[in-house]
């Protein structure tokens, strides 16, 4: 729903060298929020940076009426967002887009996430935990420090494997053998991925080979996030033809096999 919300910030803290975590009070928001959806957030009130930035939802706490964001401080927008204090207001547009589909028939899913893509899949792990779907996650990052914020996936009952550049364990071959092992050993029903082109291609290849369904959450620079500006486009392959779609409107979650990874 393209609706602007001004909501109270409950916490906004640094959790590792490059990552911050923010909690928002959503008790005044009626829309239902699904894992994989995102909010377009105004990071500052200044003339620069003034465009909103898209943030996927890290945790959805329905009982407490809060949502959480785990964000990588990368540019001017996210830098300004760290300056927001508890008690201040966050300007959010959303929830936007379509989230993940967790088929009721699934017993076992495998998530592969890279970098800040981990935040996107964390909400899915939370949902899987709630629905009693067993979940294994391979989390890839530059450093162990970047993975500090990922510990929360274990709280949801997920089995978590870490790979990093620092430890030279994040290469595609190494992740592939881990994925194969998990898929075969656990009889995985579906694959989900976010955050890396290389891992996305790997997921597409393994999904095809094992005949598994899957979904991918795309990250793209956005203008309006309302489908008007056509900034965040990607191609889907459907029946042998390419079709351009807007990530903000028709995604950000798409069927794994359809997305043309550029």
């Amino acid at each position: 729903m393209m609706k602007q919300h001004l909501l109270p910030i409950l916490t906004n803290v640094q959790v590792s060298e490059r990552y911050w975590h923010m909690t928002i009070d959503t008790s005044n928001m009626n829309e239902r929020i699904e894992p994989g959806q995102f909010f377009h957030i105004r990071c500052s009130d200044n003339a620069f940076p003034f465009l909103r930035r898209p943030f996927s939802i890290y945790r959805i706490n329905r009982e407490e009426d809060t949502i959480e964001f785990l964000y990588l401080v990368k540019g001017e927008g996210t830098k300004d967002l760290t300056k927001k204090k508890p008690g201040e207001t966050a300007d959010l547009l959303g929830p936007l887009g379509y989230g993940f589909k967790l088929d009721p028939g699934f017993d076992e899913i495998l998530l592969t996430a890279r970098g800040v893509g981990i935040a996107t899949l964390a909400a899915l792990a939370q949902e899987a935990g709630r629905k009693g779907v067993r979940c294994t996650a391979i989390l890839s990052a530059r450093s162990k420090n970047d993975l500090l914020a990922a510990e929360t996936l274990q709280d949801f009952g997920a089995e978590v494997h870490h790979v990093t550049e620092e430890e030279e364990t994040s290469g595609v071959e190494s992740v592939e053998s881990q994925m194969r092992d998990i898929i075969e050993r656990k009889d995985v029903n579906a694959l989900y991925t976010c955050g890396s082109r290389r891992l996305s291609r790997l997921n597409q290849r393994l999904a095809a080979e094992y005949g598994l369904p899957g979904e991918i959450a795309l990250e793209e620079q956005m203008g309006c996030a309302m489908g008007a500006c056509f900034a965040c486009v990607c191609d889907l392959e459907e029946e042998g033809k390419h079709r351009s779609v807007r990530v903000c409107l028709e995604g950000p979650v798409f069927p794994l096999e359809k997305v043309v990874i550029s």
Partner: protein
Amino acid sequence: MIAQRKMGISIGSLTLPNPVMPASGAFGPEMHEALDFNQIGAIVPKSITKHPQPGNDTPRVCETYAGMINSIGIQSKGLDAYLAKTIPEFSAYDVPLISSISAESIDEFVEMSDVLGNHPDIDALELNISCPNLKGDGHAFGMDADVTYELMQRVRKVTDIPLIAKLTPNVTSIQEIAKAADAGGADALTVANTMLAMAIDTESRKPMVGNVMGGLSGPAVKPIMVRMIYQTAQVTDLPIIGCGGVMNGNDAIEMIIAGASAVQVGTASFITPTALTDVIEEIREYMDRHDIMDINDLTGTVEI
């Protein structure tokens, strides 16, 4: 008692209920969830091309100081899809519909204007003469006064509905182009499209948008647009639609004082989806505060 302020403006034979409309490319049917389309001055859908075209490589937008560079590349589903889907979708609203046309040659402008300019649901055409003339030298039509004149004159012959020429600011003298469009039969001028711009990521040394260069919009360009509106108003009596960096009612009023009859809102809608109706409300407040009964009385009232 609240005074009845007159906000309607005229573009040729067309009357708009108020002077605020979207800038083409910054407005889409999906925004109805956030914005009441029936409250705005006119609907201006994204520019349409004759044939479907895919648009430019991503990234297609980047932010610069108080501005945004876009290189979308007029991603378009083509004229047939526009007639079948876009027009019916927007005609459901109770405000004038202005079709923005982009074409690769004068012949193509004429051909498309013949179709759209004689369509019962379309109230005016905005000719995006800022796009490159592929049959000419690749320069935008609107960079050459003679080409602008010829284009307007030929389109004028195939339709009777109001024609708005959307001028490019990337010219030495916008007055020369404005005069040519006027002489060629334009009913109004949009001043102006985005400014050609470029930004580079210093870490990767790569251009910030996929197409290397793009169009700058937002508050950064507003003083340039105010200047161009003022200059244009000195050489033509045509109504001017100000465009470029209108973020609030005060920006709109500034353009009106400079010589505009109406304004378009683009980038602001990306930040606040209700920007269009907010601007209308803020214009009304200004009229109340300054006791202006008719918005047309404010046009071109800059005191030099």
